[in-house]
């Protein structure tokens, strides 16, 4: 009898092991389709991350589905047709914040990830301000893989010295030095196409309103028609007087080029410009190019973040969870970000892997107040952003601050962001 019992037990164990084995291989086998707009310069960073995933989960075949096109306008269109057609990818790149929440979370197409953050102990790994941007009262919706800073002022220190000016700390200082630069035939501030104007606008808004009121504006607590907001548009209009007239035909890279080539003195751009300057143009951070927080925003870090979540009904859910664990891990973030030219969303990352600019950004990220970017989908939903582009282009043509405030108010009401 005893013999039989042993036999039984062994059989049971074998069955259990076998069953567990199939469960594990079911968990990490098969395919994982990652949808993003990271091609070109950003391709290698994504490939390094996928390589890390594949080394951890060798049974999974990763399908790298990229749709090219700046800031993902084409990729988002493809994603929307796929989602509406009931064919979601396993995970897709999306700007953390309202671009995700206002489109996908309100439509019940994303899974709440609070349990994953608890399981992985991520509540202490990411700064508290970031959760305010990533989540709603109902849950946390995506895992941030990187952080970019939006409010960065770029300049060439040698050029500024040559022209006898210093990098402005406030917009008042900018308006003082701007005529000096114009006299020397230099464009004080270079701007590119429509969205780069919105990008400049958010930095101006942050400096006029301050971090609290800036956040209130997006929460619907500060009216678009209030005097402060009109003041933002007025100052923005004054600043535009000192920008290049051919802005609409320039990409952000060309606007940055103007600074490097000495045609313009300053440029405000997200810190992907650092990667462009140091890697593509070969200008060294520090000696070659200088940077500072955009005027009047020192101590505030305007952030945007690329993130991934779990779409409801994705075909390989277990593989997606493994993907999220990889990208949220310290190893994953420090693999991806030095190549992407962004900083880790975690506060414990190994700074020695990053270049001089990114180290300084990472320090600010850990100490500064964090607010979200408008131009990159953190604080406003897609409907607002789409119509705000129209408001912006009308303002660029007529420079009417009051009309722009009123129009933005209507946009906010129609997109459900204000009463």
């Amino acid at each position, binding site marked *: 009898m005893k013999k039989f019992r042993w036999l039984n037990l062994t059989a049971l164990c074998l069955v259990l092991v076998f069953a567990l084995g199939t469960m594990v291989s079911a968990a990490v086998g098969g395919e994982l389709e990652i949808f993003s707009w990271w091609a070109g310069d950003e391709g290698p960073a994504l490939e390094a991350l996928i390589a890390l995933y594949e080394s951890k989960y060798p049974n999974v075949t990763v399908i790298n589905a990229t749709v090219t096109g700046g800031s993902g*306008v084409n990729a*988002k*269109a493809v994603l*929307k*047709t796929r*989602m*509406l057609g*009931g064919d979601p990818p396993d995970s897709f790149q999306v700007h953390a914040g309202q671009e995700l929440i*206002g*489109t*996908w979370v*309100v*439509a*019940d*197409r994303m899974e709440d990830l609070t349990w994953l953050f608890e399981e992985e102990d991520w509540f202490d790994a990411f700064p508290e301000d970031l959760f305010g941007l990533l989540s709603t009262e109902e849950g946390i919706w995506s895992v941030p893989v990187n952080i970019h800073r939006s409010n960065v002022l770029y300049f060439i220190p040698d050029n500024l010295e040559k022209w006898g000016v210093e990098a402005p700390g406030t917009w008042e200082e900018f308006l003082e030095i701007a005529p000096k630069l114009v006299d020397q035939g230099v464009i004080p501030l270079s701007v590119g*196409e*429509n*969205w780069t104007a919105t990008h400049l606008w958010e930095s101006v808004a942050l400096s006029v309103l301050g971090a609290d009121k800036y956040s209130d504006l997006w929460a619907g607590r500060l009216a678009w028609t209030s005097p402060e907001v009109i003041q933002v548009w007025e100052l923005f209009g004054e600043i535009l007087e000192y920008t290049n*007239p*051919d*802005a*609409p*035909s320039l990409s952000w890279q060309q606007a940055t080029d103007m600074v490097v080539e000495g045609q313009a003195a300053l440029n405000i751009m997200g810190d992907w410009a650092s990667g462009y300057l140091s890697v593509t143009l070969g200008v060294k951070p520090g000696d070659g190019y200088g940077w500072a927080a955009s005027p009047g925003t020192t101590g505030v870090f305007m952030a945007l973040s690329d993130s991934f979540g779990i779409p409801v009904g994705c075909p390989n859910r277990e593989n997606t969870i493994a993907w999220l664990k990889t990208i949220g891990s310290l190893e994953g973030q420090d693999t991806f970000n030095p190549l992407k030219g962004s900083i880790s969303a975690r506060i414990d990352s190994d700074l020695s892997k990053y270049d001089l600019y990114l180290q300084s950004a990472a320090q600010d990220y850990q100490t500064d107040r964090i607010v979200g970017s408008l131009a990159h989908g953190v604080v406003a*939903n*897609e*409907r607002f*952003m*789409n*119509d705000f*582009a*129209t408001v*912006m*282009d*009308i303002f*660029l*043509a007529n420079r009417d601050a009051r009309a722009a405030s009123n*129009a933005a108010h*209507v*946009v906010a009401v*129609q997109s*459900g962001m204000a009463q």
Partner: protein
Amino acid sequence: MNLEHLIFQKGLKDVQSRKDQIVAALTILPSIILLGIFVYGFIGNSVYMSTTDWGQSAAMALDPQIEGVGLENYRELFTGFLNVRFRQDLANMFFFTVLFVALTLLVGLLLATIVDQLIWGEAFFRTVFLYPMSLSMVVTGTIWRWMLQPRGGINFLPTLIGLPPGEFLWLSSRAQKLVFDWSHLFHYLCLMLLIVLGLNLFNTWRRRDRKHLVWKVIFFGALLGVFASGILTRIHLLDYSESHGFNDALWGVVLAAVWQMSGYTMALYLAGLRTVPSELREAARVDGGSEFQIYRYVDLPLLKPITVSAIVILGHIALKIFDLIFAISSPDHYPTSMPAITMFLKTFRGNELAAGSAIGVILFVIVSLLIIPYLVVSFRKEV
């Protein structure tokens, strides 16, 4: 031959022709079903969607809550405060279509005439001029985006002969000409009708077509009266005045589009010139016609059917233009935006799927207005 035999033969014929009909119907059936679903079914679906409110906050839900709102989306597009961009798009589309079609025809005809006169190298030049058409609009857009850079390309050309560089902002200018108030749209539509009718009247008068002339003069006079009295300006589409016009920035787009398509019209005209019977030319020569007179009174009239086809083909390209604009300027650059761009952005970026459908339907109607009369006329000719 007896009667029974005749009846039998007729019956046989009937059976045969019925069989033919069945075979024909079966052959065409798959195409009809596919066209019915994927063209007409989807047109119908877009029309239906354009009368709903699809595009509220949860637009991307698996089962979005959609309610009918009638023609609200259309009203919003033509009179809504925020849809000023769409109205400028319509103005842009109008000016672009007129300029693009006119210039492409003109340049094409000119090239065809020159190439036709060439004694050698005709095949070479024909290929050279036709070549841009083989490029996609996106490639054309990218090339011209570079060429029209304010700090280089075309503006740089004058410096080669020692002149100062050009300053024209080909794609980024915000200057506007021919400004009109959208609020008084009907007034300007009346003016357009007046111009078209005037041209038609001139033609009728030249052809000495007395019968229709009287009616047309009366109608023209009445319309002129309506326009001159300004009675239509009393209709206010909006509560405020909203100016639109021809944007200087469109010149860059027109230039690129003409560059791409004029080779095509050249090929059409060249084929047309080749079909002009040499007897006609010889007869004209015998009558003492100069080369120019032969061109003007023999060749050109015979090219008219080609012009009509070319207008329809180029016109519908111009009305639907999307890819060229997307590549040559940024999508949110209002002075060069077109309805198709706004449709794409509204639908896929702003999640306003119903409003996007409405723009699609409006575009469909405008293109139909161009194509249906052409199809009707050419069908009549065939029958």
